[in-house]
């Protein structure tokens, strides 16, 4: 257990992605079987102990400690598992704060799988006595599911792939054919057996991505144009008996959108944009803001599903039945997709329409006139392009809507993370109210060059008027030209506004703060 609890601690404290990957890779190479397989299951969110609930932890700790001291501790620490791990009073005969090495990760997993609901508190307590604080924390996090150590399933798989020099997309392909503790996966990774056969399982295929359009124009006889929708890109993989939804990062998000997974019963792989319908839009696609209500949830309530009904706007058909269409030209896949639509329920699936334009100039006009909240820009796809993983030059382009901009005044600054931890690199900026007050309208931490960052950092340090913990309030003198893709109503912010993708476009040293934009002006840009 010591190796696993050290891994968790490392993942909690390490900020950089590469650092986290290296930790996972080292563990996967060095830990014994089947411990490392169970660790991989835990890190990818594939462990669930039906009979161990958070209440078991409460019951266990109340039997061992003064409830008042426990509550005071919990108020201080916050997290239940961490509180219990830290204050756990061992039995007198157990070595204090030492992991005595008697418990292996797989031993713990077996125990948790086998335990009944009634016996869970005692079983946990017996194991707690053999561990140190890190081990106890790891045990409680394992037992109740959801490690929450700041890594995605995709990152864990990437770390695994890195450990054995594999391609993470190859790992993804075989993933759903396997189950914890992934013996066949490790056998393949270490060359003891062949690649596991993913046939018949709903596995993830890497997405095809687009480059930003930099050329002044393209020839529309070579390229087809369609809208780029502002939702989340998703892949629907159905085997006929099972359907899974994957995000662009390859994470399984079927649990967040069960109505989509249930509505798709076909045997195919499709690429599309997940959107929600908005009342304001007359049942059409709503802004990303609305979709955000549905993101990041492991499970979803009936109310969420009826308030923010989801649907998928389809872009591409990768595989139909046993036919892999990815090598075919886009135009052929598009015809297959249009034909395929007939078998899909229309409330959950529709087709991303092509934009008919006489030439590029006409397309530019159509793009400029687009005011739909859910449109992020235009996609240009070579009519003969195969569906290939990643970004391939000259095949697909994204031509985003020109960003909106506003002149805002810097109000607060905070330090960044990692390499930027010594720089004030996160800026909160505001616009003027009619009463002549500045109201925060957004926060940005990108868009500037390294040189500009140094300048901004110096500005913050030299113009600090107040400190609130890590936050510095600055003299309201600096105008920042902020670019953003769109702006929406928001109840979360005092100004009632929320920007999408705000970034610093320019530092307007030339402009007096009093000439910055107004909140009322920004409200007129709301889509």
């Amino acid at each position: 257990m010591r190796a696993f609890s050290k891994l968790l601690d490392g993942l909690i404290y390490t900020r950089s992605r590469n650092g986290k990957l290296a930790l996972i890779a080292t563990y996967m190479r060095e830990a014994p079987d089947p411990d490392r397989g169970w660790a991989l299951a835990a890190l990818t969110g594939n462990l669930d102990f039906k009979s161990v609930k958070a209440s078991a932890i409460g019951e266990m700790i109340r039997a061992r400690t003064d409830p008042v001291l426990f509550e005071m501790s919990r108020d201080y620490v916050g997290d239940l598992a961490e509180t219990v791990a830290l204050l756990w009073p061992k039995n007198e005969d157990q070595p204090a704060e030492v992991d005595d090495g008697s418990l292996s990760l797989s031993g713990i997993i077996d125990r948790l799988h086998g335990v009944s609901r009634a016996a869970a508190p005692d079983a946990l307590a017996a194991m707690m006595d053999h561990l140190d604080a890190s081990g106890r924390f790891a045990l409680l996090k394992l037992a109740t599911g959801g490690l929450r150590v700041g890594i995605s399933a995709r990152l864990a798989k990437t770390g695994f792939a890195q450990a054995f020099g594999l391609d993470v997309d190859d790992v993804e392909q075989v993933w759903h054919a396997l189950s914890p503790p992934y013996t066949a996966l490790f056998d393949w990774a270490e060359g003891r057996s062949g690649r596991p056969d993913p046939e018949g399982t709903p596995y993830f295929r890497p997405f095809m991505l687009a480059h930003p359009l930099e050329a002044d124009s393209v020839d529309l006889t070579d390229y087809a144009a369609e809208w780029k929708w502002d939702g989340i890109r998703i892949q629907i993989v159905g085997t006929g008996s099972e359907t899974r939804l994957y995000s662009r990062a390859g994470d399984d998000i079927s649990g967040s959108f069960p109505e989509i997974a249930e509505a798709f019963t076909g045997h195919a792989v499709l690429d599309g944009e997940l959107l929600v319908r908005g009342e304001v839009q007359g049942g059409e696609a709503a802004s990303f803001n609305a979709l955000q209500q549905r993101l990041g949830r492991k499970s979803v309530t009936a109310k969420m599903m009826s308030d923010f009904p989801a649907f998928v706007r389809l872009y591409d058909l990768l595989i139909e039945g046993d036919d892999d269409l990815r090598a075919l030209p886009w135009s052929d896949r598009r015809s297959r997709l249009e034909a395929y639509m007939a078998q899909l329920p229309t409330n959950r699936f529709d087709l991303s329409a092509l934009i008919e334009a006489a030439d590029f100039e006409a397309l530019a006009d159509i793009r400029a006139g687009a005011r739909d909240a859910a449109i992020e820009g235009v996609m240009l796809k070579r009519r003969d392009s195969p569906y290939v993983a990643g970004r391939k030059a000259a095949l697909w382009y994204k031509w985003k809507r020109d960003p909106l901009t506003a002149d805002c005044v810097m109000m607060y600054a905070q330090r960044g993370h990692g390499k930027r931890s010594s720089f004030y690199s996160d800026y909160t900026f505001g616009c003027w109210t009619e009463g002549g007050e500045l109201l925060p309208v957004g926060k940005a931490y990108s868009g500037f060059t390294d040189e500009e960052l140094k300048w901004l950092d110096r500005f913050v340090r030299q113009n600090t008027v107040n400190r609130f913990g890590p936050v510095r309030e600055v003299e309201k003198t600096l105008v920042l030209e902020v670019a953003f893709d769109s702006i929406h109503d928001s109840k979360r912010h005092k100004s009632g506004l929320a920007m999408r993708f705000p970034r610093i476009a320019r530092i307007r040293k030339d402009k007096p703060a009093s000439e910055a934009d107004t909140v009322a002006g920004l409200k007129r840009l709301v889509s």
Partner: protein
Amino acid sequence: MMTHLAEPRHPVPSSAHMAHWIEPHPNGIYVRPADAWIDPSLPQERALVTHGHADHARGGHGHVWATRETLAIMALRYGTASGTAVGYGEEIRMGGVTISYVPAGHVLGSAQILLEHAGERVVVTGDYKRRPDPTCLPFEPVPCDIFVTEATFGLPVFRHPDTGSEMDRLLGALQANPDRCVLVGAYALGKAQRVICELRARGHHEAIYIHGALERMCALYQEFGVDMGELRPATGVVAKEMCEHIVLSPPSALNDRWSRRLPDPITAMASGWMRVRQRARQKNVELPLVISDHADWDELTDTIREVAPTETWITHGCEEALLHWCMTHQIRARALAMAGREDEDEG
């Protein structure tokens, strides 16, 4: 008389408090017959100071009684102050009160102050710990009627691990990253010197680089005979030279511009607060080292049991939880509302 006594949650079994000649105030403890204050946070004519940390030792007093080491630390921080050095074990008389200083094991020169008057014995601990510290004398328990204790880590979640295991992690990180340095945030008085000595005791004899803010305090420790091996200023050095070395700075410099000069530092911090993950993450610490100069929960409760006073007064920290513990263990106790303690600069 202004007595800011926090009412204990559970009433103390007896209404009469002992030692009426001692008055806890928000700004310090007043010893009436001696007309002197212990660790006053405002300038006073006569001050008895337990140790040199800023939340206990302030400048501007008329006359200070403290150990020789504490006086030297105060002189370094606040310039010359008129003071009388009191040796450990030495007895001084002040207005009918016999006063002596007993090692507290907290930092160099730290002392508990034992006051005897009218047949009653009162011990004011200042800050203390029970673990060995190569830079100062160990805490000595003194039987007394009233034990005035700190409670910085007065919650059962605070249980400091063995110092050795923390030092092993520090040295392990250093070894595993030959192209980086380990930057350890440590308080300028006490923690920094202790970490250096603990490293030396484990056979780490490489030069240790130190932030400018630590230089004078380290020099002072050396004057008092604490051997810290080779220390080099971290300023004016090429980054590459510091690879594979330990660099020490005050916690405030960890994420500040100063640290940009270092070769891809692994950020560590030596503090009892590092026990709680969220505290470490808030400070962007990658390598939290739970090394504290304060008593942890077990040390606090064990010490109260060992000293076995008639009454326990709790000065600062998480006094509520320790008060609760005393109540449930039939120990008469009360919490004093003390101002300005548990500064950021402690732990």
